[in-house]
C-alpha cells in the first residue's frame, strides 16, 4: 500500500490546521451590498397614470387604504391595512399584513418577499416598481 502510505504521511506531516482557516472564512459581504444605493418605489395607481416616485429611507412604511398609512392607496381591492415595507439587514422586505386580495411580486402572491431591483409589486390595481440604483 505504497500509495496509501504516502497519502497518510502527507496528512500527518502537513501543517496542523491554521486556526484562521479552521473556522469559516469571512466573506467580504459589504462588497456585495452597496450601502449607499438609493431605493425607490415608482407608484402607479392605475394603468394610465404617471408614476409617483417615492424614495425609500431605510425605515418601515405601511401601505393601505387608510389615510394615516405611509403610502395611502385609496382604491378598490386594497385593504385598509394591506402591506408594509421593512428595512432589515440591508434588505428591503415587503410583507402582506393580512390583506383580503393579496400582495403580488412579479405575479407571485407572497406573504413576505425580499425585494430585488426591478421587482414589480401589485396591490389591487396599483403597481409599485422597486428599484435600487447605486449612488454615483
Amino acid at each position: 500500500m505504497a500509495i496509501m502510505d504516502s497519502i497518510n504521511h502527507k496528512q500527518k506531516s502537513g501543517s496542523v490546521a491554521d486556526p484562521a482557516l479552521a473556522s469559516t472564512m469571512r466573506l467580504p459581504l459589504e462588497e456585495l451590498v452597496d450601502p449607499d444605493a438609493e431605493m425607490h418605489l415608482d407608484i402607479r395607481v392605475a394603468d394610465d397614470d404617471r408614476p409617483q416616485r417615492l424614495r425609500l429611507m431605510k425605515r418601515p412604511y405601511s401601505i393601505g387604504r387608510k389615510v394615516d398609512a405611509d403610502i395611502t392607496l385609496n382604491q378598490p381591492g386594497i385593504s385598509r391595512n394591506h402591506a408594509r415595507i421593512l428595512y432589515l439587514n440591508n434588505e428591503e422586505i415587503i410583507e402582506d399584513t393580512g390583506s383580503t386580495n393579496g400582495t403580488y411580486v412579479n405575479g407571485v402572491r407572497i406573504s413576505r418577499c425580499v425585494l430585488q431591483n426591478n421587482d414589480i409589486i401589485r396591490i389591487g390595481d396599483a403597481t409599485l416598481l422597486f428599484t435600487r440604483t447605486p449612488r454615483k
Partner: protein
Amino acid sequence: MNTEKSAVSITFWGTRGSISTPGSSTEKYGGNTPCVSVSSGRSTIILDAGTGIRPLGIRLAAQMKTDGPFPQHILLSHTHWDHIQGLPFFQPAYIKGTDLVIYGSSQKERFLESILGGQMDVNYFPVQMKELAANVSIREFEDRFMRIGDIDIDIQEQVMHPGGSIRFKMRTGGKTVVYATDIELNAIFSPDTPTDTTEQLAQEYRDFIHHADLLIADGQYSESEYAEKKGWGHTSVPLLLNVAHEAGVKQLAVFHHDPEHSDAFFDLLSRQYEPVYRNAVPPMHVFWAREGITIEL
C-alpha cells in the same frame, strides 16, 4: 407576519442546485442551495439542508433568544452535497436544549448518521457532529407516512437520480404541498423505450402530485440543455410543466436552478412559459422559485 390566520406558508431559503452561486447575476433568484421551510400554525418542517439553511438558522436562533429553544425537524431528500452542506452552519444545532431531528432515507448502504457525520469529520469541519450542543437525533424513515405537529407527510423514494432521492407530500389545513426535487422526470415520462416500470413510475408520480396546491419541483434544464445532460438526474422545464399541468397542479415552483443560469435567464423562461399556463384550462400558476420569498396557501 400574519401566520396566525394562514393555513400554510412556504419560505424558500435556497433554490440553487448543485453548488452555491454568489454574484450579481444570481442575486434575484438566489445563490444558496436547497432549503425550504413549510409552516402551519405552530408546526414547521425544514426540507433539505443546503446552504440556504444558514439564514433560516439565524432567524430561528434569534427567535429562540426570546422564546427559548424549540424542536427542529429537518427532512433530507438525499445526501448529495448541495442538500446537506448547510447543516454545520445551522445555528440552532449549537443551542443547548434544542431538539434537532434529522430524517433521511433508510435505503442507503451506509447509515444516515455516518454519512452526515462524515461531512463534519475533523478534516472537513472544525466541530464534530457529536460535539453539537443541541440534542441531535438522526432517524431513517421507517414508514411511508409520518406526522409532525399539524403536518401530515407522505414519503416516497424516487429513482432516476444518481443514488436516488425522496419526495415529500405535506398535507395541512386542507392544503397540499409537494417537494420533489432531484429527479429526471424525462426518463420516466419520455423514455427512449417505455416499459412497464417507467409506466408504473409515471403513474406513481402523477398520483403523488395530483391536484397539489403547490408543487416544488426539479426543473434544472432548458429543453436544449437537456439533450446534452440526459442521464444526469434532472428534469427539463417544458416536460415538468406539462406533467404538472396534466396532474392538475395549481401552483408550480420551478426549483433546483442550474448554477450556470442567470437571473435574466429565469426572467426569460418566466416570460415564455408563465402566460401559456396562466391561460391554460385549468390555469396553473408557474414561477421560478426565488430565495427570500414566502408564499401562503
